[in-house]
């Protein structure tokens, strides 16, 4: 089987398991809605201030809710030694990792696509005219979060303090990607024109994704097996 076939098989397994149980997506979605509500107490929704921080708000919600999905990613395999079975299967560490990334990515995109209209409604924002570009930003930013989160999920899966360690390790790593996503989202949601300066953020997001995907694929075997 080719690399992609193996990865897709693993992604399919994860997605099928998630569709049947719906535990992670439900929890993540509820958490996203709770955070949106909590932020409404901190900032006056509908004001100009919210327009300035809209991108930041959105990506904080995505990052926090995403951690729930990413944490479960490898943790769900601990039961009945499934992780050991997966590692000893013919699929290499990189294939296992990539498959899990694909599954997490899809789940995270679902949560984001559902929470975005809710954000628009709660904060009286207007649907962005260039929603296509905004969707591209979401695609790029989410892949960054997924790749880093899945690798660190693999790293922390066997630790006692797994739920504590994952956010502590992941969030500082994600800062460049979040910065770019936040900046671009704020501009696009506000309906402003993208300056030439802002195009650098697209390059940063793409570069971040490529660098850390390659690095993760190279090192994940060491993390999982040794």
């Amino acid at each position, binding site marked *: 089987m080719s690399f992609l076939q193996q990865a897709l098989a693993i992604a399919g397994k994860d997605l099928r398991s998630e569709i049947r149980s719906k535990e992670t997506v439900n929890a993540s979605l509820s958490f996203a809605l709770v955070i949106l509500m909590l932020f409404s107490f901190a900032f006056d929704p509908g004001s100009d201030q919210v327009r300035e921080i809209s991108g930041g708000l959105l990506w904080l919600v995505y990052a926090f809710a995403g951690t729930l999905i990413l944490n479960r990613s490898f943790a769900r395999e601990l039961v009945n030694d499934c992780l050991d079975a997966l590692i000893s299967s013919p699929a290499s560490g990189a294939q296992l990792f990539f498959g899990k990334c694909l599954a997490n990515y899809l789940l995270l995109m679902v949560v984001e696509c559902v929470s975005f209209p809710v954000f628009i409604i709660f904060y009286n924002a207007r649907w962005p005219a260039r929603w296509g570009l905004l969707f591209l930003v979401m695609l790029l930013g989410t892949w960054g979060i997924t790749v880093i989160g899945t690798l660190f999920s693999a790293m*922390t899966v066997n630790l006692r303090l797994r739920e504590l*360690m994952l956010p502590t390790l992941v969030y500082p790593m994600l800062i*460049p990607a979040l910065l770019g996503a936040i900046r671009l989202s704020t501009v696009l949601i506000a309906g402003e024109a993208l300056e030439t*300066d802002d195009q650098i953020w697209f390059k940063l997001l793409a570069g971040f994704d490529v660098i850390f995907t390659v690095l993760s694929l190279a090192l994940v075997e*060491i993390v999982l097996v040794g």
Partner: protein
Amino acid sequence: MRLKIILALSVLSGLILSWNLHTMFLKVPDELNQGAIFRIIYFHVPSAITSFAGFFLAMFCSVGYLIKKDLRFDSVAASITEVSFAFTTITLITGSIWGRIIWGIWWTWDYRLTSFFICWLLYVGYLMLRRAIDDPTTRARLCAVLSIFACVDVVIVWKSIEWFRTQHPGPVLSIRSGGGMAPGMEAPIWWNFLALMMLATVLVLIRMRQEAMQREIDTMRRYAHAF
């Protein structure tokens, strides 16, 4: 032999630091715009360079461990990270105190301070991961991977926050107010840098010895339980 090196470096570093204190307080005049507080630069900048260098040195040692699988590389990486963490803390706090006088505020999200704070957080993550894993080989392996990721991330973080802050200019942290420094005033920075590097080396060597001791304890414990 190693003990002699440690002793020699400590004495030398102590001498240079004492001599520098003399230079800083008695020879160098107060800076025109900043006054006395500018002398903090003599600790702030060398600490900053030392802590930043720590990331890259630790990464090289981590790569060395992954290739050679020798736990001594892991000890070096861990020791360097710990010492660099101490120096990053010094950088942040001295920078904050300097800012309190110059800008009137304890903290600002200037790009250098922000980047250094992120470096500090990455170090914290590394040290927490080390504490969380008991098995030495697993610990070495996972911390090596984390160190490589952290180093790559530091470079990207530094550049991206610089771009972010040039788009949204905040207060400009210029340790050097205007171009450069008068020649007499710059020399103590580099002497202090030498002294702090020696101090850092001493601390790293001591920590490495402790890591070797810990390895010996682990081996003996395994041997004892084999009976």
